[in-house]
């Protein structure tokens, strides 16, 4: 009889949750009283909201003379006006390039010169600027980022706008034509989210970028890239009081947006049936995409689907991989994941066929494997392993300051508290085989999903193309 370690999982939760409870204790209203503890190197988490709505989180960590910062705008391409996806990315690129007090190209040069590592990303839900640099240079990113937020439009002219827009359009074109499955991935996404949904075409195309006008960028910046839509997190070798003072100095005078814009919370889209798309692409063997719209980020169901993904194609339990790659040998590679997003998530399965196998054959094998999984319920040990794999690396990742800034910002933006880790991890507690079965049944139904069957074809256009599409109505409304 196999042992179970489910009785030990509470220890894992305790381990991670105690961590976060410590943080909650510091998320209080006042930093003037100083740190509540004195463990070596670190002295606590502090949070404030400036008058203009900017949320600021500071954690002292004196182990290295470095500081990590993230400025996260709680908006991304989902806020783009219809047909103008790419405007969030373009606005951020323009702001990073030059502002009223920062000459063109100087932002990167100054950061590099200061010994910083830095990045900027824009997704459908948010955009984030991240930097790690010597703590004595804390003011540099604050100066740069506050200028981007408050002094954006003053120096932007049409020539610079066109240069950056064309550059982004060119990069989009290279992505779309240089990646064999770029269009296919987009097709699968757009089948999940109807045309009016903010996630529809949120990835942006060369054409959508080319449509963006100067006024669109200015409007997007003034509406969204404002203090009241942003969270600034600082973790490192700083004192909280000094960090707050510096942040107040640079960001405090920047006015909030006029009427805080919000993206309405939407119900997760419901598919009317099974949509099957046949496509072709320049790939050496067939590919299969299967996707479902699923509950949004940070819900209990979202966590359960993380565990389902781990069970299907994870590190220690990988039932789909075992069955399709190992036993039936119809696939070369299997990936499954819950792509968590703020408005609606998606559960995705991606399979690369073994040489000579068709996408239809792979789909049949996939369905058969899922049937077998439902017919022979899992053991608690399997679920425990999947849960453990899902959370233990996350817990250890908190050791690094550059990881923590992102986590604090994510929690603050998503649920209104930087110290949400215990609540987040609590979502993974108590997951049993029956819970997993229920999640499979409710969220991954065969008659309400998007299937893309990709045939290999050297004559397909770069990025691939759709050949046909049909929808089989669900058995029950």
């Amino acid at each position: 009889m196999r042992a179970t370690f489910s009785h030990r999982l509470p220890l894992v939760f305790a381990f991670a949750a105690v961590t976060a409870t410590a943080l909650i204790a510091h998320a209080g209203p006042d930093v003037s009283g100083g740190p509540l503890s004195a463990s070596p190197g670190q002295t606590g988490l502090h949070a404030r909201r400036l008058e203009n709505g900017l949320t600021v989180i500071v954690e002292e960590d004196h182990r290295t003379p470095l500081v990590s910062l993230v400025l996260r705008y709680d908006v991304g391409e989902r806020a783009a006006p219809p047909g103008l996806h790419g405007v969030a990315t373009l606005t951020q690129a323009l702001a990073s390039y030059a502002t009223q007090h920062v000459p063109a190209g100087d932002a990167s040069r100054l950061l590099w010169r200061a010994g910083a590592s830095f990045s900027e990303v824009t997704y459908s839900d948010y955009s984030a600027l991240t930097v790690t640099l010597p703590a004595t240079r804390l003011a540099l990113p604050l100066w740069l980022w506050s200028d981007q937020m408050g002094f954006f439009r003053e120096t932007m002219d049409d020539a610079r706008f066109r240069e950056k827009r064309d550059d982004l359009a060119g990069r989009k074109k290279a992505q779309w034509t240089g990646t064999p499955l770029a269009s296919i991935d987009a097709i699968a996404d757009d089948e999940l989210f109807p045309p009016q949904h903010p996630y529809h075409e949120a990835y942006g195309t060369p054409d959508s970028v080319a449509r963006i006008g100067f006024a669109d960028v200015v409007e997007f910046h003034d509406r969204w890239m404002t203090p009241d839509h942003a969270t600034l997190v600082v973790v490192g070798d700083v004192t909280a009081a000094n960090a707050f003072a510096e942040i107040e100095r640079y960001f405090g005078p920047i006015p909030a947006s006029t009427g805080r814009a919000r993206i309405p919370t939407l119900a997760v889209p419901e598919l009317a049936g099974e949509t099957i798309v046949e496509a072709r692409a320049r790939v050496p063997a067939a590919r299969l995409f299967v996707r479902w719209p699923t509950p949004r980020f940070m819900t209990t169901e979202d966590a359960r689907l993380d565990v389902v993904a781990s069970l299907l194609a994870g590190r220690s339990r990988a039932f789909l991989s075992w069955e399709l790659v190992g036993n039936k040998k119809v696939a070369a590679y299997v990936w499954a994941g819950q792509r968590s997003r703020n408005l609606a998530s998606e559960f995705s399965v991606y399979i690369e066929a073994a040489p000579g196998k068709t996408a239809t054959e792979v789909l049949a094998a996939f369905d058969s494997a899922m049937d077998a999984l439902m017919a022979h319920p899992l053991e608690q040990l399997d679920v425990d392993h999947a849960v453990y794999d899902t959370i233990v690396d996350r817990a250890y990742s908190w050791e690094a300051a550059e990881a923590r800034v992102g986590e604090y910002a994510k929690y603050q933006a998503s649920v209104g508290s930087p110290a949400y880790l215990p609540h987040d991890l609590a979502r993974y507690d108590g997951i049993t085989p029956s819970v997993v079965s229920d999640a499979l049944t409710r969220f991954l139904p065969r008659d309400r999903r998007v299937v893309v069957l990709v045939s290999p074809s050297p004559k397909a256009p770069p990025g691939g193309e759709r050949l046909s599409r049909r929808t089989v109505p669900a058995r029950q409304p």
Partner: protein
Amino acid sequence: MMRFAIAASALSLVAACASHSPTHVAPLVVAPGTPPPVATTSAAAKRMTPDAPFRAGPPPEASAAPFVPPEPVTVWLRNGIPLTFVHQTSGVLSIAVAAAGGAVDVGAAKVETVDLMLATMMAASKTRASDAVRDELARLVMPSFASDYYSDGVVVSAKMVAPAVKAGVALFADVVLHPAFQERDFAWYANVLASERDASAADPATVGERTLRRVLFGQHPYSAIRGSGADVRAVKRADVATLHARMFDASRLAIVAAGDVNEKDVFAAIDASFGGVPRHDQPPRAPATPTASTGPRIFVVNRPSASVTRVHAGVVGPAADAADGDAAQVALELLADGTLGRITAKLRRDMHAAWVRRESYTLRAARYLGWQSMVPNDEVAASLVEIQRQMKMLAVDGPTQDELTIVHDGYASYLGALLGTPAQTASTYAYASLMGLSVEAVKQGTTRRATLNAAAIGSAAARWLDPTRVRVVLVGDWEAVRESVTALGWGVSLKDENGGARN
């Protein structure tokens, strides 16, 4: 009893991962609820003029406080394995075991033996089945063991909370030193790895990287880090077991441990588990210095009707311990840094390159210095000319004063990123041991860079980044670029998808 120990372990980890000692924390209640609100600043907060004078220019440049790495202590286990311990403030203890050899043992043609050995050895030990290993990991609140594979060796690593050191090290040693290599596990991992190789065989990035390594390193063991699916299937279980026995010999191992734990406890735990490893004095052959390739400078993998071309370019650089290694590395960064490099700026601005990415790694006998890009077909030849021009300019004129300032100031704190946490420290020093570098050599990295002058960088650029030494792999539509690329007169050779010669 163990449960209390692990609970304590968890608490100590908090000190590393969170903000303060958990001993001050109220009893744990984990229940989702309304998160605590953030405080707001006083309504009376002083308002400033938005366009205040302090915004006119960048904040004053305060000198960065240098990161002083914690002092390592090196001792030798009873079988002679060097153990470097670094005390760092953290509740996490990270251990990395470096095993030298691998590619130099099996040769480039059988390089997949190394990867397959790593995958299979972590599955189960001779006394613990895979589920038992996972069970024990969970009991000790440890993440799965990690492994990294380099051309000069492998590094396997573990993380654990301080109170679990003794049991954690014992488990880690059991898996690393006594893998079962069961037939079933071997077959599974061989199939998975072969399938992955098959699936990525035609990926342009894989094709470009694989071809460039073969072009640059020829028959040298460094010429391949990955093979094909067929290469994986050709590996026998006995090959893997034999390689493991050879590499995990005391004469080839070095161990690094870092964390906030008692030094004596760590030594005792590691010596108990690793001190008995047999020593057969069979160090790996020292890899020969790769010879620079001659002949054509451009190699093409044809992808008919591809509208953009993937460009991989690189040179064989100086050895890990070469005196001008840092200067050569800096020269590459000034040319091909993904944001500010000279080549990057020109290709992004004038040639519509989607991106330029620097690619470099240090090998014991030679650095690899290179970059990748994605360029529209009609700009490929022009971009190659521009790259050559930029390389020559750096070699002749050296870096500008501004670039030199970046080199000096920008690296002032880079050791903080290499040695900031126990995991980073263990990984950095373990890798250094494979390169034959001492911990002192790593620690002096900032000082070495701070003393680089323009002449040294220019000289290294002239020696190592001479355009005639660069080999370029183009993955794209040969017909679309043939005329302009051939006109360069650099010599062109067609390659197949595996980097082999194509008729």
